[in-house]
């Protein structure tokens, strides 16, 4: 039996943010504008995770106020990107503050070094660039709310008894 866990607003909001930011990254290659896609991505993330974001970039153009690049695979030579490292303006969203830093090298879009989230507690969560595609899937996971196991700081035998893992183990 698969345990079902009701996940609070934090997870849902974080999941949508991850999708939003990945969308931002996709748009960036076409627009070089960090601020605008970010601002555009934020409102699109309203709601409760039911807008069908699948973690693909497909959600981006429909919600973007900027020009969408329908080809999606423009050669680097036509992007007009100037080499350098760009830090996006920190954009405040209903879910917290979002900020992205990217590196453009050889005219092509390179690493996103970090995106910066500050949640309601004023706590900051940083996610590495390569984590974005993985974490984007969490929107899907949040909807199905299906969790198999929990990773956290190592608990003692006693700490286990109060852990979510313990609840999961008992549920199946």
């Amino acid at each position, binding site marked *: 039996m698969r345990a079902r866990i009701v996940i609070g607003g934090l997870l849902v909001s974080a999941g949508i943010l991850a999708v939003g930011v990945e969308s931002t990254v996709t748009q960036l290659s076409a627009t070089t504008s960090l601020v605008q896609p970010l601002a555009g991505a934020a409102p699109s993330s309203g709601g409760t995770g039911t807008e069908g974001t699948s973690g693909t970039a497909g959600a981006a153009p429909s919600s973007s106020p900027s020009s969408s690049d329908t080809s999606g695979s423009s050669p680097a030579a036509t992007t007009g990107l100037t080499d350098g490292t760009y830090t996006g303006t920190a954009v405040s969203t209903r879910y917290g503050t979002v900020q992205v830093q990217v590196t453009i090298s050889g005219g092509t879009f390179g690493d996103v070094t970090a995106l910066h989230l500050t949640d309601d507690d004023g706590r900051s969560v940083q996610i590495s660039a390569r984590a974005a595609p993985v974490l984007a899937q969490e929107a899907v*996971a949040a909807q199905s709310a299906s969790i198999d196991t*929990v990773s956290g*700081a190592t*608990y003692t035998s006693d*700490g286990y008894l109060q852990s979510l893992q313990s609840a999961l183990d008992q549920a199946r």
Partner: protein
Amino acid sequence: MTHVFRAMGTVVSVLVDGGAADTATLDAVEAVFDDLDREFSRWRPDSPASRIADGRLSLLRSSDAHRECYAEAVRWRADTAGAFTPHRPDGTVDLAGTIKAAATEAAGDVLDATGHERWCLNAGGDILTRGGTPAHPWNVALADPDHPQHVLRVVSLHGARRAVATSGTSQRGEHVWRTDPESTYRQVTVIADDLMTADVLATAVLAGGPATRSLAERGWPVEIVTVDRTSEPACLSGP
């Protein structure tokens, strides 16, 4: 059906899909942890690890397994520029930082050898899986350090992406010796193909802070999720 047992001061959960593992297999899994604990635990006064620490046994005269484990830990120290170390501040050897991952990997070998194609091992919050697919991944929730019952994020593991390890201060306080003077992070999760890499790098980034994080992101194909300390409640993470 989840099989749960105590080992190495924590709790291990074994989840096998497609028919529960038989008793012999689960016994073998438990034996893997128990054997390594007997050899490497500093909590057991007469373990080789304890005898090495207090000078009763020379590391050079210890078992092949012990010396190989030490050598691997020292390699990790070099690879992480010292952020991960198998030595306590007093200079004695403590291999706890790698031995739980080694035990979990070995336990996974037991499950593989007995023909199980889809399983999930959770050793005190460090995860190793087998058999996740894009359609049917292993969904791993990352614990919220402020709210143990809440979920920070969910990571889906499938294919070669099999491991998640988290180091933090929320459960046992400051058991990691930091080299990052700012103590930037209080929880670090690393997602990797193998658990040893995930576990060591999570510890290293927690200890070494943003500089080690950059090193890890450049040097290994991993994903890293960190929670920093900016608004750490005073009641959390004691000494």
